[in-house]
């Protein structure tokens, strides 16, 4: 029936073939041709090698500049972390640089905190005002009453400033709110944290198990590259996730586990490994302690038992661990990154570490490698800090989290409410982290801010936190400034530098300049001897003996490869008290905790409510990039995922706008509903970092839903104080037109 184009052409050709031949086509006849290849001319007249800062991973990039404008950002092939490839965010640096909403001038607050009433002032005035307030706090409460909240590479200068000032209270939400549980669990077991970049030799791995880690949506460049390499080499994948994530779509086994029951699964896996002799006998005998205790501990943790707890089938549990263990030692249970889920996260990480120990993969090819790093001295010639500050007041009175090895950001926040901690925090310096979204329980954050004497925010964009600051200082973006020398522990030892691509736009200033100007006013300028960070970088590099010009040209120096695993002749060592892998942890037993991970069933969501799970999208680094118009072209607002069957039962349509209300009546949205088969019926999922309320974020404001608001409740990890956040339940309300 259908008219074939071919037939038409034939008819046409027969009828007018002669004519068209005579005309000979437009091209030759009229000679108005444009060149075949239209070049968009985005190659730069100048290319600068620098480091990305769309997330903290610090991939090497090449920025093309044409007529003083950055046209595109591509990967730096010489840099080990990018290898010339980039995640979507890396390309989007131009969206940050040319964001029309950027902070353009220093601001001093004129109205009440939160009223967002500001006056634009000169740098002089803003810095004087800041220094005056910091000196006032120092005089009244001592220097330790000032805390720094920091995220990102540029924070190092402010940490340096604060240390010189006399305080050691530096908190990053990335510890207690993200990877802390994992670090502690692995530290307790292997004597070393997993670190960042994670010390995982993914590319040589033959079988990978992910628990709640959604590589592919979580776009840490190098890791995803290695992950894909492993897959292309035929590595087997097991994904444990309540959601059918991107990774789950590529997995041999997808275990749609009931949220909060991971430890049950892990114990059952250990049970199978021990009972079926799937573990590495020699490795364990040589390097580990506590196998017998472990055997006893998991003796009754059968797959059938775990099946009931986890909602999985016993067969699937057994099959998946057999698959994983079959590939040992080039097999790993990925430790994940964001692990602050249920308040027992350090213990879950312990269980994961134990599985890895049984696989015998620590210090082995295709497992956990032992990273190397170049020796580069910190600020040569700068005097040592004058005062030794007291320990951080980040734990409430009478509570110790004995294994917390970094300051708890939420703890510092809570210490700002007078009388709750060892001493009160009176001043905050907030660098590049939007505490209103980065910390759970935002109401507590608001309350804490009201007790402060002074709040300084240093940022690129007017995130919510800047609306509460007394002084807001506009920092230059990473494309406009020098930063410290990046010395990253990795498979290859290397250093890399960040250098300015274009001069700072508007009235923004580089972080070093801001820190140094403040140091002058605080009487600390001996700690900042270089006029700009470029000089500092040169001084550090030349002190370590590098060819500065070469590093500036290529952006990176990679040293010769050193052995990083047993296969390459490096004997693994363990920094635990016993100098062995501690399957049974005497440290935990001594501190009064379970020496081996114990399973406690999670709280069930009440009728009509769903457990709220959060995650990320590959195109965004949470709230930091949601105002990035370039990146938002492919993902501009988050959605809430709900099982399609449940949605249908409740008369909710895919794509309709809904509100989320949590167990405490906190509300987020309106947010678009994604009714999908890809999630369990008992939970909902959304990407973190949306639902901005700051008036200055003209693009991001009001887009999507803010999950932080729904986290009005946390479960604190008793080992290290991490805030388990997947303990909130929400119900879904239709938004009536």
């Amino acid at each position, binding site marked *: *029936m*259908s*008219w*074939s*184009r071919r037939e*038409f*052409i034939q008819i*046409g*050709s027969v*009828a*007018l*073939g002669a*004519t*068209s031949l005579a*005309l000979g*086509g*437009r091209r030759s*006849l*009229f000679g*108005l041709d444009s060149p075949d290849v239209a070049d968009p001319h985005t190659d730069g007249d100048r290319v600068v090698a620098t480091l990305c800062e769309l997330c903290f991973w610090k991939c090497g990039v090449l920025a093309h500049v044409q007529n003083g404008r950055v046209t595109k950002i591509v990967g730096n092939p010489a840099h080990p972390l990018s290898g010339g490839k980039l995640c979507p965010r890396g390309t989007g640096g131009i969206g940050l640089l040319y964001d029309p909403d950027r902070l353009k001038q220093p601001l001093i607050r004129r109205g009440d905190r939160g009223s967002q009433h500001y006056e634009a002032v000169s740098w002089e005035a803003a810095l004087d005002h800041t220094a005056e307030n910091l000196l006032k706090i120092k005089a009244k409460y001592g220097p330790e009453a000032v805390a720094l909240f920091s995220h990102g590479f540029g924070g190092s200068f402010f940490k340096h400033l604060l240390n010189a000032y006399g305080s050691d209270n530096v908190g990053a939400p990335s510890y207690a709110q993200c990877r802390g549980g994992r670090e502690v669990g692995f530290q307790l077991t292997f004597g070393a944290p997993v670190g960042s970049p994670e010390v995982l030799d993914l590319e040589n791995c033959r079988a990978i198990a992910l628990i709640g880690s959604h590589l592919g949506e979580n776009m840490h460049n190098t890791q995803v590259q290695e992950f894909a390499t492993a897959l292309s080499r035929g590595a087997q994948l097991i994904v444990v996730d309540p959601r059918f994530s991107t990774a789950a779509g590529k997995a041999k086994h997808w275990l749609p586990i009931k949220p909060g029951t991971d430890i049950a699964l892990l114990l059952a896996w250990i049970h199978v490994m021990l009972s079926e002799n799937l573990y590495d006998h020699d490795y364990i005998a040589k390097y580990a302690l506590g196998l017998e205790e472990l055997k006893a501990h998991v003796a009754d943790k059968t797959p059938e038992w775990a099946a009931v707890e986890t909602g999985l089938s016993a067969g699937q549990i057994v099959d998946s661990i057999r698959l994983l263990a079959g590939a040992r030692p080039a097999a790993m249970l990925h430790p994940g990154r964001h692990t602050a889920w249920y308040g027992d996260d350090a213990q879950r990480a312990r269980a994961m570490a134990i599985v890895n120990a049984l696989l015998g993969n620590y210090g082995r090819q295709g497992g956990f490698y032992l990273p190397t790093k170049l020796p580069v001295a910190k600020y040569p010639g700068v005097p040592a800090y004058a005062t030794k500050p007291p320990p951080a007041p980040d734990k409430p009175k009478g509570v110790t989290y004995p294994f917390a090895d970094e300051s708890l950001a939420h703890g510092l926040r809570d210490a700002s409410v007078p009388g709750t901690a060892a001493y009160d925090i009176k001043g905050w310096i907030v660098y590049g982290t939007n505490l209103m979204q980065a910390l759970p329980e935002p109401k507590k954050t608001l309350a804490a801010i009201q007790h402060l004497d002074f709040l300084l925010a240093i940022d690129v964009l007017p995130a919510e936190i800047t609306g509460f600051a007394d002084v807001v200082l506009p920092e230059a973006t990473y494309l406009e400034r020098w930063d410290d020398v990046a010395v990253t522990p990795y498979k290859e030892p290397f250093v890399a530098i960040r250098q300015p691509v274009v001069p700072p736009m508007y009235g923004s200033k580089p972080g070093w300049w801001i820190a140094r100007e403040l140091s002058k006013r605080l009487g600390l300028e001996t700690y900042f001897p270089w006029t700009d960070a470029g000089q500092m970088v040169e001084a550090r590099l030349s002190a370590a003996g590098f060819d500065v010009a070469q590093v500036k040209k290529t952006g990176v120096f990679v040293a010769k490869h050193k052995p990083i695993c047993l296969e390459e002749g490096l004997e693994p060592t363990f920094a635990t008290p016993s100098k062995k892998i501690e399957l049974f942890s005497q440290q935990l037993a001594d501190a009064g905790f379970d020496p081996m991970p114990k399973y406690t069933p999670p709280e069930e969501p009440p009728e009509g409510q769903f457990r709220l799970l959060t995650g990320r999208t590959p195109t965004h680094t949470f709230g930091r990039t949601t105002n990035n118009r370039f990146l938002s072209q*492919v*993902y501009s607002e988050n959605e809430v995922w709900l099982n*399609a069957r449940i949605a249908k039962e409740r008369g909710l349509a895919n794509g309709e706008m809904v509100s989320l209300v949590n167990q405490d009546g906190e509300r987020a949205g309106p947010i678009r509903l994604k009714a*999908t*088969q*890809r999630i369990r019926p008992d939970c909902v999922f959304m990407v973190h970092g949306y639902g901005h309320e700051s008036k200055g974020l003209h693009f991001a404001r009001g887009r999507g839903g803010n999950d932080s608001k729904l986290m009005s409740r946390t479960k604190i990890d008793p080992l290290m104080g991490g805030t388990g956040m997947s303990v909130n339940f929400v119900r879904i309300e239709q938004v009536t037109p």
Partner: protein
Amino acid sequence: MTSPVHETVTTRLNPAIDPALHIWGWEITVYLFLGGLVAGLFILSALFELQKAKPSTSSGMRSVPLLALVLLSLGMGTLFLDLEYKAHVYRFYLAFRPSSPMSWGAWILLLVYPVGLLLWLGNLPAALQLPVLARPMAVAQRWRRPLLWLSVAMGVGLGLYTGLLLGTLSARIQWSSTVLGPLFLTSGISTGAALLLLLPLHADERKTLIRWDLVAIATELLLLALLLIGYASGSSAARMAGAVFMGGAWTASFWSLVVVVGLCVPLAMGLLEVRKHLPLIALTPVLVLIGGLSLRAILLASGQETGFRLLP
């Protein structure tokens, strides 16, 4: 409902392409409608004269060539409005691409003008018979009969082309049907007759036109049935494309506006006119014109949405 659940998500959001293709709007609808109408006018007026072997004396019939040219120019005007790169419109006439109906159409449109102009000149009202026009008029009158035949040919070409323009775009499953050309031609003839009926005509011309219009409407109904049968009996893609009229989004407007308003009711009224010799009223041709416009609008809008994206 036994097919497995299928979810598909795309990140593409190009304006006018996503979520559903909508590149051609009212401009092309009007253009296709007027193109068909003009084709009908050309064919009908020429056939009339050929049948009678002498030019009509009614002012309606005499004004047809000029009217047709004016309407065609209007149509080309809307076509021009639709062009996204208006300054490049001359490019149509720097090339002839035999595989592109659009190219054929551009050239046909250019040929229609002189034919129409000569037809008009050959039958110019006395008031306008200026001395300057004497020579061309003489030519036009001498070649009148061949011109009329050419006019019919041009009309058929134009009418078919408006349908084939869509019909050859096989990526739009709904349009990819051989019926579309004849359908648009028939509809053009029927709307042309309807427009003529609204002009001052002699009673016998009117009578003949009504009969011709009825035949055209009946044929159009038949062709529409063929079109739908074609969808229903075609591949799964064709069935999906046809489904927009059989319970899909365009069902109501298609059946009500095209079939009932534009075809069935005028057919009934026309039959009454012919059989019961009821006095003629303007409503019948107006409904036919509404139906013709709706047919173009609906096929154009719904067809664009029936790309291969429909398929799993």
